[in-house]
């Protein structure tokens, strides 16, 4: 591959998903991340109760992400052929897990009003 620059990677992703969908997904990801940072700063602490549910959702996110990628690419788990494949598969699973955990935590924080803590 010649000149694998950041611009090339963006162009490739635009072509994979289409310009609208790709940038839409980027905007959604940025918004969810910002909302997550917002509730962290607003609440000034992590709510371990919400974090527990977020953690419980992680395996679901991991499985869903792997299933989605395998399904979209005519692949099976038996196609894993080398270390880089395992790393990639784990990467997809981790991304799905963290993504869903952040989403679940943020939704809980935005929907459930923070308790007013006494001094």
């Amino acid at each position: 591959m010649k000149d694998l620059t950041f611009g090339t990677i963006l162009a490739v992703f635009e072509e994979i998903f289409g310009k609208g969908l790709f940038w839409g997904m980027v905007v959604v990801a940025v918004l969810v991340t910002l909302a997550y940072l917002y509730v962290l700063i607003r609440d000034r602490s992590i709510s371990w109760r919400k974090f527990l549910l977020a953690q419980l959702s992680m395996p679901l996110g991991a499985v869903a992400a792997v299933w989605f990628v395998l399904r979209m690419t005519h692949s099976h788990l038996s196609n894993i052929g080398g270390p880089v494949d395992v790393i990639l598969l784990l990467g997809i699973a981790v991304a799905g897990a963290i993504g869903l955990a952040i989403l679940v935590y943020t939704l809980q924080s935005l929907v459930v009003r923070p308790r007013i803590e006494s001094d």
Partner: protein
Amino acid sequence: MTESPFKPSRRGFLTLAAGAGALAAAGTAERAQAQTATKAKIVIIGAGAGGTALANRLVRRLDGARITLVDPRADHLYQPGLSLVAAGLKPSGYVVSKTVDWLPRGVTLVPEAAAGIDPETRTVTTTGGTSLSYDFLVVAPGLVLDHDAIEGFSLDMVGENGIGALYAGPQYAAATWKAAQRFTETGGLGIFTRPATEMKCAGAPLKHTFLIDDIARTSGTRGKAQFLYAAPQGSLFGVPIVAEKVRMLFGDRGIDTAMQHTLKSIDAGAKRATFADATGADVQMEYDYIHVIPPQRAPEVIRQSGLSWADKWTDQGWVECDMASLRHLRFDNIWALGDVAGVPKGKTAASVKWQVPVVEDGLIAAIEDRETVEAYNGYTSCPMITRVGRAMLVEFDYNNNLVPSFPGVIAPLEELWISWLMKEVALKATYNAMLRGRA
């Protein structure tokens, strides 16, 4: 406490958001390049992968140039996708788009075929009678599939009587799958051929063999089928280290070979193919499925115009050009690009991706009266599919060296899922980005 805890946090939050926005904007900003002012008339014969990508890059680099593309084909074909269509993995529409959709504003498309090139008077004439004079000419018409060279074969046979021919276009690739699928159900002898001439993507005949083998395995019918790979060459691939790997994979999959066998004719009714062996003697084989790849040559207009090599590939007519600069050896205002170029490697879309910047810089250097700084090293890439879900990312140069793009991460001769993902997901996107001159 009366002080609101939100004020500084909100400010911090907004700063963060603004920072993220600025970062995103910086990422999307295209690198500005200084334009060269010129009144040059540039004619590009062919609006395929090479011609289109070059046109998109030239309009960005040149100010005032008159760029004309000559190509009668309304449809643009993403040819690397034909192997997937012929294995039932993608619909035929996957490879088809409109030629005009990829062309930049500010260029002219003459939707006619080139009928004549006169390098002395610097004119191109078209089948519609248009005469175009040029200062610089880029020859990128692709190649022609010489189906008539296979006696008894014609394209209307594809899809019936166990005949496949995936190179011929999207509808033929889909018809090939029809015939191949029947073979994976009923079994028998499948013969997979390749021509004696230079050809585009020398990996494709192997990919088709591997894919149909894998599909037969998945359907549980592999035991009823016999696979034979028949080729005029002495080895399975032009790059020795890859040829050895393919030989091992063929051994593993139980695919037999008949090397130095050139397909001469087929009798569709009797399902019989005739090959010439190393001694020139006829060898007849009865098949249940045969994949035909005909000899490939430069278009007639190239061969008639005196642009071809006089002492090499005389039956094929590829353009005589320098291996590194792709500039014509006798006419210094002509470049060859893509399949038609008379260089030892490089009839793939990946090669085009590396050739386009070379021709672009060569042409602009000529306009600016300086030496070019770009050179083509023969880079050719082939995501060699070895089964549905796995491929080997094979990349090499003129010297048969492996030139992996991701050394230490993606091993070149290993069957990997990640290489399959590149072929299935990222390749068409990269190709499209290339067409737009952005990769």
